[in-house]
């Protein structure tokens, strides 16, 4: 009797019915596959893009040396290097990956020896950047040049136009620390305005201008 029961249970377990998932979940997985396929294609394109930029940079670098060998003219090397930098700069601004953008920004900032040019590039990037994290990093970098008029102008402009509260708070901190006159006036107006984000307004109150 015992033997038969054990055998029966074993057979029943082997023939346990397979249950069916809802069609909704099956369709959800199909969508996930499509999205992942799309992501893969996109990342492959980005990969190619990065390699093409790198290849272009190397070619330009070699060309630069080639020209220098022939003409022995250091100005041409500088111009070639500058052109390579410009290529990388354009690629950085358009790069869809945040990580790549941040890495390239670090490189661009450290490789630019002319301060005015560096600030110009940073201002351009801040004005065109859409991601708050990249923008915060850029504002942190540019804050070390806040003694320059164009940087102060940019901060005032950001103070009036920036919609992201986190970026705005970062700008406010720099303005209040440096006591930039026009910026301070705008901040005082914000204290009494009803159109300012409550988070930003609280922060201004906390600063006790």
């Amino acid at each position, binding site marked *: 009797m015992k033997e038969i029961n*054990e055998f029966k*249970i074993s057979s*029943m377990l082997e023939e*346990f019915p*397979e249950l069916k998932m809802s069609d909704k*979940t099956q369709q959800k997985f199909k969508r996930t*596959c499509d999205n992942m*396929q799309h992501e893969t294609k996109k990342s492959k394109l980005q990969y190619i893009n990065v390699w093409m930029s790198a290849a272009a940079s190397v070619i330009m670098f070699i060309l630069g040396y080639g020209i220098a060998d022939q003409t022995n003219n250091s100005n041409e090397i500088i111009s070639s290097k500058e052109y390579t930098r410009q290529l990388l700069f354009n690629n950085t601004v358009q790069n869809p990956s945040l990580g790549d953008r941040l890495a390239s920004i670090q490189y661009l900032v450290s490789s630019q020896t002319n301060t005015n040019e560096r600030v110009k590039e940073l201002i351009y990037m801040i004005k065109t950047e859409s991601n708050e994290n990249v923008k915060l990093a850029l504002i942190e970098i540019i804050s070390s040049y806040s003694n320059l008029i164009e940087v102060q102008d940019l901060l005032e402009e950001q103070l009036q136009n920036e919609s992201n509260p986190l970026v705005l708070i970062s700008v406010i901190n720099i303005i209040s620390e440096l006591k930039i006159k026009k910026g301070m006036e705008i901040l005082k107006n914000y204290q009494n305005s009803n159109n300012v984000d409550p988070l930003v307004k609280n922060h201004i109150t906390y600063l006790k201008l």
Partner: protein
Amino acid sequence: MTDEQVIKKVAKGNIGLSMILFKKYNGKVFSFYRYMGLSIEDAEDLTHEVFEKVIRSCGSFNLDKLFKPWLYQIMRSQLVDFRRVNGRTKYVNISEFDFKETVDFEYDEIELSKLNMALLELPNHDRELILLVKFQQLSYAEAATIFGISEGAVKTRVHRIIHKLTDYFKKQYPNERD
């Protein structure tokens, strides 16, 4: 095309082909979670996560090995994660379980429900093992790899579990002995 050939192509970027594996195994994975006592919603979510993980980690799949045990290893690890997050609170009441979701219904519903109830009485590790060996029909060697124990130990445990289930049946339904 074998499962291993499919996964190789998926790893190369042909993600659409993973639908072949999904269609072949989703019922098995989903049923495993249901028989482990998860609600339909949780079992569906976990099944979806398993196949998503298969696609994401297929690059690390060893092509010298078989796909099925690898899939069941992922299936088990997802369940472990689920338990870690949800504890036992999200398990269904055994009386809520029925067999309305079955693909082919050619069994005695009452008998199956009783066996399922008996299964739900087992400790988790025993239930997992018996489901993988009997319902999913993994070989003893494959189950041994997944559970990290010897093949002999798997055989002994399977035998002991069946014995336990038999005893449970005898105690719960004494009049049904033939």
